[in-house]
């Protein structure tokens, strides 16, 4: 199963590191990263492979959200299908 992680918020040191650490601890593989900073605003999207994840989807989603709260950004994990459905025929 593939998921999309989005991270949006004020830029600071270590955002990517913290997210990637959590992912690697759970055997979640990163397939693609795209990131920009516009006027100090951090905006990242990751495509990840959750098929070997040690935790279930719900727990990953919850923990990423909480991690976001800790470092002051909004982190979302969603299944890729919603974006494919909307933007690809």
């Amino acid at each position, binding site marked *: 199963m593939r998921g*999309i992680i*989005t991270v949006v918020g004020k830029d600071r040191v270590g955002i990517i590191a913290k997210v990637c650490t959590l992912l690697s601890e759970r055997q979640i593989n990163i397939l*693609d990263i*795209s990131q*920009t900073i516009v006027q100090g605003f951090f*905006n990242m*999207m990751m*495509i990840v492979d959750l098929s070997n994840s040690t935790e279930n*989807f*719900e727990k990953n*989603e919850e923990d990423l959200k909480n991690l976001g709260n800790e470092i002051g950004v909004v982190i*979302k*994990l*969603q*299944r*890729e*299908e*919603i*974006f*494919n*459905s*909307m*933007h*690809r025929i």
Partner: protein
Amino acid sequence: MITRLEVQETNKMIEEAKLDVRTITLGISLQDCADSDINRFNQKIYDKITKTAEHLVKTGEEIEKEFGIPIVNKRISVTPISIAAAGCQTDSYVSVAHALDRAAKQVGVNFIGGFSALVQKGSNPSDEILMNSIPQALAETERVCSSVNLATTRSGINMDAVKKMGRIIKQTAQNTKDKDSIGCAKLVVFCNAPEDNPFMAGAFHGVGERDCVVNVGVSGPGVVKKALEAVRGKDFETLCETVKKTAFKITRVGQLVAQEAAKRLNVPFGIIDLSLAPTPAIGDSIAEILEEMGLENAGAPGTTAALALLNDNVKKGGVMASSYVGGLSGAFIPVSEDQGMIRAVEAGALTLEKLEAMTCVCSVGLDMIAIPGDTSEETISGIIADEMAIGMINGKTTAVRIIPVIGKRVGDIVEFGGLLGYAPIMPVNNFSCRDFIHRGGRIPAPIHSFKN
């Protein structure tokens, strides 16, 4: 591969424009529950509903979490009770409504539809029992919704039932007068009622349906409004294309959710209802879309044309996005559930008569309209008859969900709460239609040629 901008666009629709899946409605047939003993019948329907819908709410919540899209309501529709309970030896179906209410509470759905009868050509004894049970049933239950189909294009209008429902609506208002006559918000009368509609109050599980089916209603007036902001001042071609493309995207999400829900519940996917359904939340309004098109207020001249193009292009975009489309599919124009509509009524821009004209081109009809409590039952029947005629002649679904609020007058405000919102009491044309309504009988089916 999906791009960051596409992901952003989707998430902006959800977060800023309130894109959501309005309802996952599980249709359940109760035809196999027939029993001559009403208590046994009630037990059978309770058991079937609670077993079939056991995982509905949990499944909805899981999908919501995984895809990051709100699924606002999880609901159930059942076989019209006048059909399912016809074999019971009884003179009241109020206990059936209680059984439905208990089942809804047990599985955690907020509404259950199907306390219904189909009487477009005539009513049998069971239909009569059902209609007579409505006022008490809606007063004593919380989550049960009721609907009666009074007319179809193929059968004409059952004017006896139109007369009767005027009285039933008044009685329902009276029975729930302590709560601003809210019983009437759970009661709708139809012309050409669809059998697969997932939206309340008019949802029921048609007799032509299979045993169990998942129907999904999408929404997203806010998304259409935001998209139109980007093409302000452009011509109608651009306007229509924008609505179409937006409807396509919204519907694709609904299709995904429907397929996922069907798979997880192990129930066949029925239809997607392409409706734009407003809520009282700011920015979730049909009237604001009409304003964005260039009208000062909903109800201004041009409103019917604006609504027609909105409705048509929602369908054009949505139909391609889903494998099966059904239900009511179009723009809803309820008054109390739409901030912009409420504002238009308060400003004097929107009247009952203009709303009636709008129902010729929108998806349903006169919806969630509060009128003075002293409106006569004949006048209510007259309003219903007009709306049924529009549906019958134009071959479309029309409906009336009107609330004569006991003890309130024009200018008062009535508060229904939650998704039902609030509404100013609207004036009604009180010139009498008494003699017309009391004629009795049926209006024959219309001619299907000479469409002038």
